[in-house]
């Protein structure tokens, strides 16, 4: 076939235009892919941040509700009816917050995303503050809490304050729930020479049969279950307590007698702050497990 110069030129122009079109289309696709990739990366971040995100989504409004209900209770003193309602809002919010704290920490631990935040804690203060925040529940059942401490004044103990508080709240809530009205709850704390904290929470409640002591820390176990159960909660609390204590290298024991009450005993060794934890080195024994062995495969 013979082409004139002009025909050849036209063909070339046509082909150039075609290839330009292709390139433009490729660029377009590429940018779409890049956008997609960005979105995917974003969603992965969102996924891994899910827990901490939803935690704030729930905690922030709940804190507002409780703060406002608390304020209402103060202002509505002249109107008994409304004050009662504000009180109800506060109390329900309090229980909701308590349960959510357990659920969040359980989810965090089951996902393997728990980090210890070790600080110097004034254990005695923390305990009495916690008791104070449960005062409305204690008043309702006319319970008295007696705190007995052998700790020197202003004694500081290195541990994860938030997790310790969760342990305490669960045990206290448990004691309140199962104590008969107008009884005493005793809390004892001491720290021994090896810097192990011992916490006893003693109630005069219904007690736990011996054969059930084993299962009480299992997930979602409440001894009296079913729709007729007398007590609230879904048995996640003690499971959470046990898991937190394991995480902090402590432990919990329970002794109990039917109709005489239960004693929960917590042992918690003092934690190290993160900068103390790194004291490892023993020089001259470094090993590298390189990537070559990976690439050979």
């Amino acid at each position, binding site marked *: 076939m013979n082409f004139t110069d002009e025909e050849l030129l036209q063909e070339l122009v046509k082909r150039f235009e075609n290839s330009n079109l292709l390139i433009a289309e490729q660029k377009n696709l590429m940018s779409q892919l890049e956008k997609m990739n960005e979105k995917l*990366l974003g969603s*992965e971040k969102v*996924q*891994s941040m899910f827990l901490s995100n939803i935690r704030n989504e729930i905690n922030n409004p709940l804190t507002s509700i409780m703060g406002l209900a608390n304020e209402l209770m103060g202002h509505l003193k002249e109107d008994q009816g409304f004050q009662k309602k504000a009180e109800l809002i506060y109390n329900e919010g309090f229980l909701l917050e308590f349960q959510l704290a357990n659920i969040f920490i*359980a989810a965090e*631990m*089951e*996902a*393997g*995303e*728990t*980090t*210890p935040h070790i600080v110097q804690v004034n254990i005695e203060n923390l305990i009495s503050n916690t008791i104070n925040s449960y005062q409305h529940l204690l008043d309702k059942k006319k319970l008295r809490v007696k705190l007995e401490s052998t700790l020197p004044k202003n004694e500081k103990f290195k541990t994860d304050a938030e997790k310790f508080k969760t342990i305490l709240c669960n045990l206290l809530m448990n004691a309140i729930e199962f104590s008969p009205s107008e009884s005493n709850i005793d809390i004892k704390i001491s720290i021994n020479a090896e810097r192990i904290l011992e916490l006893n929470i003693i109630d005069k409640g219904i007690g736990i049969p011996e054969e059930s002591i084993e299962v009480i*820390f*299992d*997930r979602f176990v409440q001894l009296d279950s079913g729709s007729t159960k007398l007590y609230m909660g879904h048995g996640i609390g003690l*499971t*959470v307590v*046990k*898991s937190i204590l*394991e*995480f902090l290298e402590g432990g919990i024991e329970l002794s109990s007698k039917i109709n005489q009450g239960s004693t929960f005993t917590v042992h918690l060794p003092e934690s190290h702050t*993160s900068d103390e*934890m790194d*004291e*490892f*080195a*023993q020089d001259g*024994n*470094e*090993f*590298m*497990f*390189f*990537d070559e*062995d*990976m*690439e*050979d*495969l």
Partner: protein
Amino acid sequence: MIGITENISKHFLYPSNLFASKERHYVTTILGSCVAICLYNKKYKFGGINHYMLPLWNGEGLASPRYGNIANEKLYEKMKSLGSLNDHLVAKVFGGANQIKSTINIGQRNIQVAYDLLEEFKIPIVAQSVGGTIGRKIIYDTYSGTVKMKFVKKEE
């Protein structure tokens, strides 16, 4: 290569935790009788690691990655959810020293749990340092898959 750390994120992995990310991290952890599996995606160059203390969950407490059977399964699932297929994955296994006299071979049993899972999913073990009586500190570069290890005196 590990050593000079410019702007690479560092992560300290606590016992009973696990970590996996598509972004490059240097993950440090210290092992006694605990075991850590480093899973590495050699195709897309990222990795994940766990650190478990006991071999099997007995239903007590939470089903957390404190236990080997749960930790290994969860790490594997996480690597898959980040886009790994089985034949992208290789493993390095560390730890399982028997430091404490009284415990009944916890280290050895922890190692066995790792082997069992990796065999089940047909993930090859390309490097390992397990057993013995001394603890280990490892730094895992999740981008290159390199693991730097030191024997350490400190017990867990």
